[in-house]
């Protein structure tokens, strides 16, 4: 293959490879998946991806074990989705089911956040933070540790079955399954007290649903991360399709800068001597072999690309060795790319010499280099303001909400009851909410209805206008309330208020309530 290649005197690996998922060799739909053996990449983006993986996996595995003291009446788990009692605990926040709009708000923020991220840095979610990407990376670490890097894996895959291959394969899949179990096992701890549940799970005393959840997530983790990998992104995930609508010409995408790379060739010096123009791409295919999606980035932006930027690392290493500028493959915006293309290919044919200074050989100053300022534009600022606005609004509402509450439901049938002395009685189902983790002494009262009194069977049998009561922590106290108003001149309907307040007056919440009377 590589004879006395003048561009790579022993310092460059030339990979004789065709991208598996290239448009040039699109497979018929019925064809079986062709395996991808991504080579290990080294460089800035790879290091950044390791860091992101460390952070995301740490968050995932450690969060359920964080403790948060809420007193004796509430669980001390920092993040807990208590489905049985319908409570959601998140550090200092406790959310009840009727406050689900906070979760809806979070989802809206996540949606707008995806717009924001995509319009600025493209598919950064796909490339760095998506669980599919993180877990595939993790599975690849295991695969490389056992079977070796790309070439060794290709050789092993082609080798006939024997004891050595069997041992490697069995241990790889066992480790994958263990990771799967650890994934599913960590998930369940978000839904119950983690230490207790771990003890129960180990001693086979946990609820069946816990084991089913672990089994399901083990299966999906193993299948998606180990067996299906890039197919999940390409065929199952809607995001690659949706995000095309969110990118614009100023979004960062992983770009092969063919304005300086083409015409590519492995024998640059020979070509130059022969008078044929040569670009920076030496066609070493380093970008192809590291790609976990099995594509050739030099074919341009394509649906499969998750912008993991490993090809940037691979190419930068090659450029370093060749003593050329980094960034033949780089994060660039379409606008900058087009400007550079117009510079070097005014006639539609790339003339790489136009990008370089005749004397020094450096890139001319007219060449546009994408920098971080591309993220500051009206569109992204609007996204950010919307995103931050929702977040601030939620925080404000959250910090102002009263930790007690009152819900009132007027009887529908009968709307009112005429009593023997001519007065009118209305019945209400009242719910008093104590959303704190301590018992609360409260005062329930009515106001705004002249002469009215209330009775509560079992709690206030004698007519009164207010009632002292204690509500257990984190509970709803249901009350059956009868309000009686004397005979007199009154509209058909009168509004009055029912209030609940802390005995010490710290919080007070009122509900506007209707009093119905017979028509005359």
């Amino acid at each position, binding site marked *: 293959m590589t004879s006395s290649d003048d561009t790579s005197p022993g310092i460059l690996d030339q990979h004789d490879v065709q991208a598996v998922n290239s*448009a*040039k060799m*699109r497979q*018929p*739909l*019925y064809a*079986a998946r062709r395996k991808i053996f991504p080579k290990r990449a080294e460089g800035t983006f790879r290091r950044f991806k390791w860091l992101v993986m460390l952070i995301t996996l740490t968050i995932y595995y450690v969060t359920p074990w964080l403790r948060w003291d809420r007193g004796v009446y509430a669980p001390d788990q920092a993040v807990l989705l208590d489905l049985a009692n319908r409570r959601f605990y998140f550090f200092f926040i406790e959310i009840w089911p009727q406050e689900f709009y906070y979760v809806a708000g979070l989802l809206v923020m996540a949606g707008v956040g995806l717009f924001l991220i995509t319009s600025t840095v493209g598919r950064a979610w796909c490339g760095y933070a998506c669980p599919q990407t993180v877990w595939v990376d993790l599975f690849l670490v295991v695969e490389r540790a056992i079977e070796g890097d790309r070439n060794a894996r290709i050789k092993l895959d082609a080798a006939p079955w024997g004891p050595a291959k069997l041992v490697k394969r069995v241990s790889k899949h066992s480790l994958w399954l263990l990771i799967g179990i650890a994934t599913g096992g960590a998930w369940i701890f978000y839904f119950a007290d983690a230490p207790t549940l771990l003890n129960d799970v180990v001693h086979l005393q946990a609820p069946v649903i816990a084991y089913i959840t672990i089994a399901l997530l083990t299966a999906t983790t193993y299948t998606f991360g180990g067996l299906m990998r890039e197919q999940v992104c390409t065929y199952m995930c809607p995001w690659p399709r949706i995000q095309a609508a969110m990118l614009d010409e100023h979004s960062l995408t992983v770009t092969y800068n*063919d304005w300086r790379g*083409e*015409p*590519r060739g492995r024998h640059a010096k020979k070509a130059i001597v022969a008078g044929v123009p040569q670009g920076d791409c030496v066609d070493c295919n380093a970008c192809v072999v590291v790609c976990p999606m099995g594509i050739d980035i*030099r*074919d*341009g932006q394509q649906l499969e690309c998750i912008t993991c930027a490993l090809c940037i690392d691979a190419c930068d290493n090659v450029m370093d060795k060749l003593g050329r500028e980094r960034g033949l493959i780089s994060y660039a915006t379409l606008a900058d790319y087009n400007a550079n*293309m117009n510079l070097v*290919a005014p006639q*539609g*044919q*790339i003339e790489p010499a136009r990008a370089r200074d005749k004397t020094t050989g450096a890139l001319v100053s007219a060449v546009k280099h994408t920098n971080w300022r591309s993220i500051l534009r009206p569109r992204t600022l609007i996204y950010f303001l919307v995103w931050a606005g929702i977040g601030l609004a939620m925080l404000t509402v959250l910090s102002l909400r009263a930790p007690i509450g009152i819900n009132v439901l007027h*009887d*529908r*049938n*009968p709307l009112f*009851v*005429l*009593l*023997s*002395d*001519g007065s009118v*009685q209305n*019945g209400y189902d009242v719910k008093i909410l104590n959303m704190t983790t301590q018992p609360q002494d409260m005062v329930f009262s009515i106001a705004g209805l002249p002469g009215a009194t209330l009775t509560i*069977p*079992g709690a206030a049998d004698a007519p009164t206008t207010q009632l002292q009561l204690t509500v257990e922590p984190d509970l709803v106290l249901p009350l059956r309330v*009868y309000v009686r108003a004397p*005979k007199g001149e009154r509209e058909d309907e009168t509004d009055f208020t029912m209030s609940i307040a802390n005995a010490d007056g710290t919080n007070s919440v009122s509900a506007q309530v209707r009093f119905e009377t017979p028509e005359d």
Partner: protein
Amino acid sequence: MSTPNKPGKNPGKTDPGQHTPANHVDDFSGIATTGHEWDGIQELNNPLPRWWLWTFYACIAFAAVYSVFYPAWPIGTSATPGLLGYSSRAEFAANMDSVQAGNQTVLRQIADTPVADIVADPELARFATAAGASAFKVNCTQCHGTGASGGPGYPNLNDDSWIWGGTIDAVYTTIAHGVRSPTDPDTRYNIMPNFGADELLDKASIKTVATYVASLSGLEGGVSTPEGATIFADNCAACHGENAKGVADLGGPDLTDALWLYEGSLPSIQAQIEKPRHGMMPAWSEKLDDATIKELAVYVHGLGGGQ
């Protein structure tokens, strides 16, 4: 129209040699067509995706196994029972049985407890109120209405006026034995004489006493006269009480309050004295078991007017 290509790019084109064109092959994609055409649009003969096909085969296999174990193949008006002998009807019956079995203890407790003690026990009272509410919907709403607020001739059970007494025991007795039930010897029974029809009072006296009764609760046209008071004392006080406040033991309604079983107006009072209307309520002990009657009593007593 030519697709603009960046230099160095190869337009996606599949090698037509990969496919054996049985019939027409599409020029652009190189894929055989089905031969179907609509307005010049041809259908490519792409194969089904693998995952789809395997899911389809798995469904067929599942259906085959399912039809062996569960009711599946129709035979005339019935179907093959399946090896597991499953039926949704039996499952429902089993569910109902288990609910019934689960309630046995508390139902026996209710049957064994005097009704006044049920009201005093919060646990029993909660169960009895819920059970009574559902029994009320089946047996009582026809006359008393879904909100138990009654209507002309049918008492409102939410208010604080009780013709036969509003204590829990009185309510229980009324439900168990009914009012003027022809079949129950212990039924609540009274009859108001036909003062007009049987000529026990002349027209003028009826009008006088009706006007007097109307005045007791301040109805329009009511006038309190000594003659009316005398007629009332002689003819009505035995059942309605000397002060006209009613006698619960005899079922004589209170005539001084704002509530009327029939319409609260002078003509209605006069008509009632002329030829009284009488309601009738079945003795429910003939149809319902004692626990259900107790539940009904607890529910009705707790509607807001119980004494």
